[in-house]
């Protein structure tokens, strides 16, 4: 039953893919996550199977009493097939750890994918709210409210001096992770991205690649988040990132302007070739797709590709991921088949306006 409702999600575009919101040409999404634990159970690493079941029941009851069951998708991760778990990871609705770990655990998902609540991940409860574009204040207000609503009937583990108690001391205090996902292709091309990293690290902000490990970013997407969670209020942490992101946006815009003024022909050529390959390839890997889509996305922002919109591109980034492809095609695919399926999906979606491409079939 849950699997069927996840299929519903496939057909829709979640919140952060909308490509709207402030600074949406560069800022993909803003996200805040809060880590909370119930005071009367051990942390997850020490929780017995019975504990986990009781924690899940208590939190499920609380969550469903706040949001009507019809407005929420509550899923038992253990009951899901691998491809559905992976799908939720690709949508940023659960973490990879949540998909791959063991034991009783669940997630409550908003059908519009603005928020999700993970139960029994690294902490008993991890609340997450996301919004398209740069919108940290709005995201904070929403998550603050959800947190208060849950806390009305449960007792969180909280310490006078150390704040909200978490399984790992790296999250103690506010238990809050603030992240903004940015698309920075021009900074990569002009080789300034390393400089940006270093200056962010100096102010205790972490930079991670989307779907990548460490600083290797696929598709030129970078996620900036706070590392410190204790000793600064939630407002302060949001402010710190909120003040830093516009500076990076400015750098990226200036780098894009530079590219347009200094090498417009080369840029246009790069973007056009990327668009060309995506529209005609018969087999294409995930890595190459991300790489080319990044150029195309930049091209769309710069007005070099008039017949595509940002929400379409955002959707392509997600729908060409492995689990999405399999759910869309309705069958299990190995890597080789996925590459063919991916190419077919891209051809279908990028050639809509042009009708049939010569002798090409779908």
């Amino acid at each position, binding site marked *: 039953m849950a699997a069927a409702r996840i299929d519903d999600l496939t057909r829709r575009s979640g919140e952060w893919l909308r490509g709207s919101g402030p600074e949406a040409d560069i800022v993909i999404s803003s996200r805040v996550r809060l880590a909370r*634990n*119930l*005071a*009367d*159970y*051990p*942390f*997850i*690493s*020490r929780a*017995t199977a*019975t*504990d986990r079941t009781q924690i899940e029941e208590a939190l499920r009851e609380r969550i469903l009493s706040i949001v009507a069951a019809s407005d929420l998708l509550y899923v038992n991760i253990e009951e899901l097939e691998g491809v559905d778990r992976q799908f939720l990871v690709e949508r940023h609705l659960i973490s990879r750890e949540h998909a791959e770990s063991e034991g009783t655990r669940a997630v409550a998902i908003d059908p519009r994918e603005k928020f999700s609540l993970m139960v029994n991940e*690294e902490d008993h409860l991890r609340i997450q709210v996301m919004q398209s574009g740069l919108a940290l204040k709005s995201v904070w207000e929403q998550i*603050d409210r959800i*947190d*208060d609503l849950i*806390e*009305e009937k449960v*007792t*969180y*583990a*909280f*310490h*006078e*001096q*150390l*704040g*909200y*108690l978490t*399984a*790992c*001391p*790296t999250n*103690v*205090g*506010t238990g809050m992770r603030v992240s903004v996902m940015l698309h920075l292709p021009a900074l990569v091309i002009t080789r300034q991205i390393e400089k940006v990293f270093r200056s962010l690290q100096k102010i*205790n902000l*972490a930079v991670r690649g989307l779907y990548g490990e460490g600083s290797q970013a696929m598709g030129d997407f970078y996620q900036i988040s706070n*590392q*410190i*969670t*204790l*000793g*600064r*209020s*939630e*407002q*302060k942490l949001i402010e710190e990132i909120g003040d830093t992101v516009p500076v990076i946006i400015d750098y990226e815009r200036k780098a894009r302007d530079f590219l347009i003024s200094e090498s417009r022909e080369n840029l246009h050529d790069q973007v056009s070739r990327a668009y060309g390959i995506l529209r005609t390839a018969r087999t294409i890997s995930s890595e190459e797709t991300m790489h080319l889509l990044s150029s195309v996305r930049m091209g769309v922002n710069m007005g070099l590709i008039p017949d595509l919109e940002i929400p379409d591109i955002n959707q392509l980034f997600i729908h060409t991921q492995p689990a999405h492809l399999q759910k869309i095609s309705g069958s299990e695919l190995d890597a080789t088949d996925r590459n063919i399926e991916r190419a077919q999906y891209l051809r279908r979606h990028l050639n809509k306006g042009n009708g049939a491409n010569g002798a090409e079939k779908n």
Partner: protein
Amino acid sequence: MKCQKCDKPATFHITELTGGKPQELHLCEDHAREYLSSSSDEPSSKSSMAAVLAQQMVVGQTAEELARLDQQACPICGMTFYEFRSQGRLGCPHDYACFLQQLEPLILNIHGESEHVGKAPRRCSGGTEKRIQLIRLRREMKEAIEAEDYERASELRDEIRRTETQET
């Protein structure tokens, strides 16, 4: 005493406890810094949290002191400090109170601060203390059942019910 890597005097005495047998290192400031920073990671994954901890703990302590610290166990969940050092994850909320002395420098190292500023639960911040007892009670009940001491298990279950329904 001379540094084990050069001729300068050893000012850092480090006890390594990875692998069970304590190993004592005596290094000058430069080699100590080099040694300690050679395996520093982002403290965001389990093993690197444990690594940060290991480094944090071993500077300036003897093997006996560390062994004593390691054996300390939380009265609520039973987790020992050694277990925490190995996995980088705490066992229950009470661990923060129980191991506060050891955790504070670690927390200061990670966050640059050791006092929470910001949001607190609306209803009752002191509620944690009472609820934590439930962790111990449930653990004891499980142990009583395992030991087939059903009378004690039954007593504990009643006590748990009483505490659970007590609103904070």
